[in-house]
């Protein structure tokens, strides 16, 4: 069974040159080939048009989805945890104001790249914060920042540290923590929220003019902040009668 095809192949190979040469000079053969090529081109043209169209559709869908995801992630990250999007009047109701909702854990994915030990400490502290154990969370975040000041999550930990005080209406310590966060981790992903919260805390302490000057520098320091954050700044400026 195996021998036969290879023998045939040899025969065909031997026969081919002369036959092909004869065919090529035949105008009917040439025209036939041209027609075949024409048909192939037509087919390909149609397929390319369809693929281009499909590709364009997919691209549009992707862009739409991307915008949607960005919006949702922003809402998750900026809006809900830490009460950043809540009015400062909220602390009047104890416990409720700054406890991050269970779904709102905005662990930056970069954490995975960091040392496992540091990560664990951060996550434990975050869990405590979620559970409303602000004192425990305070200790955890403080320890994390002290041990890993260069960690990608250090800016986040500093911010949440401030939140543990803020939630307990310890505005003095909250202000110190947020001020430290602004000084050291200005470029952190939590930077804009941290500055916003610093202003809110200053206002809560009755230092309105300081709060206003903090709000005033927000757009300059964070020109790429989200619309939501910018709106929050505008609201706070209005609320505190900043000029």
């Amino acid at each position, binding site marked *: 069974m195996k021998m036969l095809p290879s023998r045939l192949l040899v025969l065909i190979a031997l026969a081919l040159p002369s036959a092909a040469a004869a065919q090529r000079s035949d105008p009917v053969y040439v025209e036939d080939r041209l027609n075949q090529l*024409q048909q192939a*081109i*037509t*087919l390909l*043209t*149609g397929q390319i*048009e*369809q693929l281009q169209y499909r590709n364009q559709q997919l691209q549009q869908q992707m862009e739409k989805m991307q915008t949607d995801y960005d919006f949702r992630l922003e809402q998750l990250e900026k809006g809900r945890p830490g009460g950043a999007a809540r009015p400062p009047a909220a602390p009047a109701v104890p416990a409720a104001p700054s406890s991050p909702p269970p779904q709102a854990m905005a662990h930056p994915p970069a954490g995975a790249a960091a040392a496992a030990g540091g990560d664990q400490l951060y996550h434990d502290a975050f869990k405590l914060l979620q559970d409303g154990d602000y004192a425990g969370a305070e200790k955890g975040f403080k320890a994390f920042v002290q041990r890993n000041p260069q960690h990608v999550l250090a800016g986040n930990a500093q911010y949440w540290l401030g939140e543990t005080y803020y939630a307990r209406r310890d505005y003095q310590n909250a202000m110190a923590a947020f001020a430290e966060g602004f000084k050291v981790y200005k470029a952190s992903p939590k930077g804009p929220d941290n500055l916003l919260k610093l202003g809110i805390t200053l206002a809560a302490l009755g230092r309105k003019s300081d709060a206003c000057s903090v709000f005033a520098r927000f757009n300059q320091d964070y020109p790429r902040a989200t619309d939501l954050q910018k709106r929050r700044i505008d609201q706070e400026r209005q609320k505190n009668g900043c000029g």
Partner: protein
Amino acid sequence: MNKRFDMMLPRRRTIIGGVALAAAGAAAPARAQLTIDMTKPSFEPVPIAIVDFAGDKVGADIAGVIRNDLQSSGLFRTIPPSAFIQRDINPNAPPRFADWRGIGAAGVVVGQVTQAGGNIKVDFRLWDVVVGNQAAGLSFNSQPANWRRLAHIIADAIYKRVTGEEGYFDTRVAYVSETGPLNQRVKRIAIMDQDGANNRYLTDGRTIAITPRFSPTLQEIVYMAYGEDRSTPPRVYLQNVESNRRELLGNFPGMSFAPRFSPDGTKVAMSLAQDGRTNIYEMDVRGRGLRRLTNTSAIDTSPSYSNDGTQIVFNSDRGGTQQLYIMSASGGAEKRISFGDGRYATPVWSPRGDYIAFTKITGGSFGIGVMRIDGSGERLLANGFLVEGPTWAPNGRVLMYFRQQPNSGGRAGSVTLSAVDITGRFERQVPTQTDASDPAWSPLIPQ
């Protein structure tokens, strides 16, 4: 206020005045149920009463033409004169509004005809019954023979006042008149008013003539006709509508077909067949210079210019099936826009520029549809055994096309013209004296 109207027919001034009539009643601007938004998903036709115009017996004929125009649009419901309560209406004074409210009219049209030195003067007023004031009023002078055009112009004014869109009643339709048995069909180019009146033939029927298309001034049409003997291929001709003088538009060895004027009338795009390939060319009407616009080995045909003249939509089977493509009017930048199931043919760009109408063939069935110029938002407005060849009313809100019914044997039967608005809600047959196909709707007749 005195607007001069140029005439449509050469060397004869037809309509020599269009004067706004001062309001005879209250002055507040009218607005209420005497308006209609045709883009809304559902609406009730506006009930309107058109009183026979006073002063001359042609007044009743004028009112009849206006009624027929408005009713045919699907946007109006004309109230039959037998239902009218007020019979002693004075064309120059406000009607008794209560009498007209009583029969459910939202508007009343009154008018009068007066003789003026061999001409007739026609005034009309549209009264808003709901608000109780005058919504429109105009006066025209013309030769008595032009009374139908005056009626159409008045119907256009009422349509515009009520819908906010330009009217389309003062227009003509060129079409292919079909007579004789199916195997020996005589196909002649005919031209008529939009409502079927004033029908006349532009070709004698000795050879088959098809695809008539208007120049923007309506002075000429282009069409394709077969040669008198079999050795001459079908070719594109240019014919003056008044003198009937016709000339060949370029002497090509192969067949030339599917001609269409550019919006400014200086060019005609058409297909030329050569060596088994059909490409689109543009001919300069005055200098007869020819320029190739497409270059495929497939069949590119049915070119139609965009309303601004910068682009052309056409169909091509370069990708294996007939699809719609858009290109620059000077050629190049070709882009396919149709991607639905089936084949697409005879695209026409809306005079408003917002849609492209087409014939769609899916499986064995035909449809008339529209899509936006990027190919999105495709909608079918009519379908059937055979519907084909859409053409736009000048306001871009109504399409005319032809419809063939199967005969008793299930094969091609009689052919008629139909019209449908672009919501697809209101389809009607357009009256013709013979079987008719391939209509071309003219722009508004220049006044």
